[in-house]
Each structure stands twice: as C-alpha cells, then as structure tokens.
C-alpha cells in the first residue's frame, strides 16, 4: 500500500514554524511598506499550514474551516491594507516604513 515512507506530521509543523519566523524576520528587516505587508501574509500562511496539519492529525474538519475563515479575512485585510498603503503613499509620497513615523510621541 505504502509506496514510500510517510512523512511525520511534525515536519509540517516545523515547516510552518520556520515559515512563520521567516515572516517575522521579513517584517523586521523589510523597509518597504508593501513587502512588510507581504511578510504578514507569509505569517498567515504559515499558521494556516499548521491548522491544516492539525486538522489532518485529528480528522477534524474544524481546522480547515478555520483556514477558510483566515483566507476570507486575509482577503478583506489585503484589500483594506493595500488601500491604506495607497492612501499613505498619496499623503507622504513614500513607501519607506521608517519615514512613516507620525505615531511618535
């Protein structure tokens, strides 16, 4: 039946952890607002992967439902977030996150 050795599910989880951390690192080092936003998407995807993995492990459809909702929210978030980026760019004429620091006290 099994043509090949199976993959331990923990590997998937580790992959998701690494992806998540890469996303965080991206958030930290990227200086362009759009790429920072992409890093966020990367983190979301990493989490989705672990959801799916757990759903597989426990044969529970809830994990996948969760991923579905995350996608919906991510889509909405991307739309609003990118609109905000456009608005910011109009106002400040830059996409460099370090120049967008009006929240400073």
């Amino acid at each position, binding site marked *: 039946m*099994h043509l*090949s*050795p*199976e*993959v*331990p599910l*923990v*590997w998937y*989880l*580790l*992959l998701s*952890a*690494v*992806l*998540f*951390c*890469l996303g*965080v690192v*991206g958030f*930290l*080092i*990227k*200086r362009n607002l*759009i*790429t920072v*936003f*992409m*890093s966020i*998407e*990367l983190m979301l*995807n990493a989490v*989705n*992967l672990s959801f*799916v*993995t757990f*759903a*597989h*492990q426990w044969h529970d*459809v*809830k994990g996948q*439902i969760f*991923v579905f909702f995350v*996608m*919906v929210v*991510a*889509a*909405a*978030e*991307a*739309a*609003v977030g*990118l*609109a*905000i*980026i*456009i*608005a910011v760019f109009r106002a400040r004429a830059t*996409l*460099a996150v*370090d120049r967008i620091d009006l929240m400073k006290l």
Partner: protein
Amino acid sequence: MHLILFIIFAALCLTGAVNLLFQKQPINSALSLIVVMTSLAVLYLLLGAEFLAAAQVIVYAGAIMVLFTFVVMLLNAGREERTLGSSAYRTVGFPAVAAILAVIATGFMKLQGFGDAGIQDHITSTADLSTVLFTRLLLPFEVTSVLILVAILGSVALARKGDAEGREPR
C-alpha cells in the same frame, strides 16, 4: 512518494520565503511569495485538504497576490531605500525570533502521539467541508460576506482620490 513531494515543495516554500527576504525589488518579493503560496497549496493537497488547496491557489496566489503586484506597479515601487529607523529590530527582534522558533520547535518536537501523513489518508472532501459550513456555521459564514462588503467599501473610500476632509475630488 509523499516524502519526495513534501521535500520538494517544502524546499520550494522555504526558498521562496528566504528569497522574499533578500530581494530588494518589491515585485521580486511578490513573485517569491507566489511561489511560497503555490507550494503551500501542494502541501495542503498532501494533507488531504483539496478544497483548501484550490482556494489557496485561487484566493491567495490568484487574487491577493495579483492585488499586490498591481499595487506595486501602481505605486511604481522601486528598490528599497536604505533607511535606518531603529536598531531595535536587530538587537531585540532577532533574538526574539530565534526564541520563538526555539520554543515552538521544541514544543512541536515534544508532541507525542502524532502520526504520519500518507498520500491518501483522510482526504477531506469539499462536501464534508461545506456540510459543516452551511449548517452549523451558517451565520458566521454569512457574516463574512458582510465583512467582505465592508472591506470593499472601506478600500474604495480609502483609495479614492480626495483631500483630507474627504470632500469629492475636483
């Protein structure tokens, strides 16, 4: 077979993610992210989540990333500037990330009773998913449509040309 597929696409995933970090042009980063997402779709498929795999390709790799690339082009985002806002990301952020990774990874390694994934076990059919979605979770599901509607209105309002007071553009 499963192992080979996993290794290939996990490697693709990681490469894409790392490439995302190292590319200076946003458009390149966006393309790497598409690679990551598509590989993830394959991994979903390996885990028996066929509907999600499709949705991943359509929604993420398709819609969302198209949106990203459009915005990159619209704003004509070029190479990143070498700005230095704060050094906290290095002094605090990197150790923190390392710590997160270490803690989570150790936690995952210690998980017990976790099985393996074969290529054909436990395939969740779209029907299974939709049964739950349209019965028990009907209300949240419908509410998400409201969320999306609000998001559409919000993004239109935000991205519209207009001055600070929100008056109509002349």
